[in-house]
């Protein structure tokens, strides 16, 4: 794989062809998946894209800057609730999506700074505990801000959220486009894909920049980074803000897609899942993180669908609850990866560096 990528880097024409093929695959993917496996898998695909955005956001904080964040899902919640409050019957507001999504990114970024500021001096385990607490605080606030003034509607959540509309067209209904009918799930897929690609693009650009190098320098040795003249306070806050803003975007899309948000979507388990995507895929390596996001969205769904029937065919009855089995296998997979591939499934290769990754 590494060798293939290296040769693609050397040969511009091969790289062009490869990206063209990838583009075609991504474009027809929803039709293939929807046609062969049905709509439930198409939803999984849409969610995979959301999780890729989340994983890439967390990757900036954990992978690049080396700041362990266990409350990342809070920023997803901020984006989702902002969308829910500004585009639903709850307050009777129906602001357009092009306003809410950027606002969600900004607000989540501000929350990122709010989390970052008091934790600047913390690292490792201590930082993890504080961020975990932050994630829980946000969730508990969402759960309880229904009295005395009803803001979040508490545990019932907010329903009837406006679907995402682009140019007056709602993505919740099939769209007729040049004589082709694009079903709703497909339309969401293309929107999520576009934003995921944007986030991939921003991540790649940031990684290979003065800011990206400063993040990695802080991860590698904070004292040396300071001695090099890096204002570690600002650069860390920037990492928190950037990472959070990606989460905010994904959250807004999630709210519009689901038409419903409630605090239980933003539990600690979700933070852990996103962290697992980053760690399992390959911390700090963008393709690895994307792979992690896809695997950890698709594989659990696969088990959910196949564990029950498989047991029936093998043993004649369901011995283990598929949900329990799913967690069991997930745990096993995590242990196996950490034992045999501690740097993740697709870590950034030193080989790549030795070949000189002069991205001209």
């Amino acid at each position, binding site marked *: 794989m590494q060798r293939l990528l290296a040769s693609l880097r050397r040969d511009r024409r091969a790289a062009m062809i490869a990206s063209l093929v990838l583009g075609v695959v991504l474009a027809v993917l929803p039709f293939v998946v929807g046609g062969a496996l049905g709509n439930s898998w198409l939803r999984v695909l849409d969610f995979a894209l959301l999780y890729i955005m989340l994983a890439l956001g967390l990757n900036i904080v954990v992978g690049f800057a080396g700041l362990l964040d266990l409350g990342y899902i809070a920023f997803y919640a901020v984006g989702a609730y902002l969308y829910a409050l500004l585009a639903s019957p709850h307050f009777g507001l129906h602001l357009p999506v092009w306003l809410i999504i950027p606002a969600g990114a900004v607000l989540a970024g501000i929350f990122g700074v709010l989390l970052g500021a008091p934790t600047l001096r913390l690292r490792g385990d201590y930082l993890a505990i504080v961020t975990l607490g932050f994630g829980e605080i946000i969730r508990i606030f969402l759960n309880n801000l229904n009295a005395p003034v009803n803001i979040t509607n508490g545990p019932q959540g907010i329903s009837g959220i406006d679907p995402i509309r682009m140019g007056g067209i709602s993505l919740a209904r099939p769209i007729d486009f040049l004589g082709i009918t694009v079903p709703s799930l497909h339309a969401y897929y293309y929107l999520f894909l576009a934003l995921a690609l944007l986030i991939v*693009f*921003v991540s790649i*650009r*940031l990684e290979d*920049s*003065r*800011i*990206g*190098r*400063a993040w*990695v*320098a802080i991860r*590698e*040795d904070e*004292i*040396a*980074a*300071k*001695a*090099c*003249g*890096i*204002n*570690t306070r600002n650069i860390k806050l*920037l990492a928190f803000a*950037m990472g959070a803003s990606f989460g905010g975007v994904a959250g807004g899309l999630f709210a519009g897609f689901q038409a419903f948000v409630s605090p239980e979507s933003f539990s600690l388990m979700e933070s852990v899942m996103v962290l697992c995507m980053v760690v399992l895929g390959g911390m700090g390596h963008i393709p690895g993180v994307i792979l992690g996001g896809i695997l950890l969205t698709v594989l659990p769904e696969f088990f959910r669908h196949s564990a029950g029937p498989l047991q029936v065919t093998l043993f004649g009855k369901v011995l283990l609850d598929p949900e329990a089995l799913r967690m069991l296998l997930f745990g096993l997979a995590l242990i196996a990866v950490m034992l045999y591939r501690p740097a993740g499934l697709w870590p950034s290769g*030193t080989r790549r*560096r*030795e*070949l*000189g990754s002069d991205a001209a």
Partner: protein
Amino acid sequence: MTVADSVLLEARNVDKRFGGVRALQAVSLTIRTGEIYGLIGPNGAGKTTFFNVLTGLYAPDGGTLLFAGAALAASSPHTAAARGIARTFQNIRLFANMTALENVMVGCHVRTRAGVLGAVLRDRRTRGEEEAIRRRAEELLHYVGIADRAHDLARYLPYGDQRRLEIARALATGPRLLALDEPAAGMNGTEREALRVLIEGIRKDGTTVLLIEHDVKLVMGLCDRVAVLDHGARICEDVPAVVQKDARVIEAYLGPGENVHA
């Protein structure tokens, strides 16, 4: 050395305490522009503490530091770097999982400006700046003599090259004063000689050098002036020939009285 040499760094009665330990006691010393200044002393004399105060890692408990005529802000390493003080560390602190080239490119951080927007949009100014950073980093690797290792991860470099890389990274911050904390530690004779030539070259190219070193021979051969610390106090500051004969220095190194009969 003429009297007209201007003062680059002046420390006046710098104090630093850690609980009951007085790590620095009213240390005063003067480093002139363009010289190689040695700071020596037995283990635990406070040399590295002075470095840490100088580079903003510790805030002094008393006294003042004047750099190029203006006071140094207390306790912020990045502003010290911005003012033009660069350092290396006694126990090498490289960015282990970055390449040698990237290590030096990080050193350029303080003299460059590109932010998030520039990084994402990669406008012409950012591209030009990145190009300049890369060129400068390559030059510096060449300057310290490890250009052929540019794309190796820092942690795979041999020990001597790691020391050189740390110097290159420090030089990338564009310092007026380069502070080296025991750069020759663990080096063999040939490596030491090469290091001596490198430090001479750095001085010749206009950077003032402050050197902490245990190897007295290296210090005496290289430094224009030397200060000796003992138990947190500066006991001597002069040219090497005088320092070598100073009774308090001999006592600090050999213990009281023994030198008489030795």
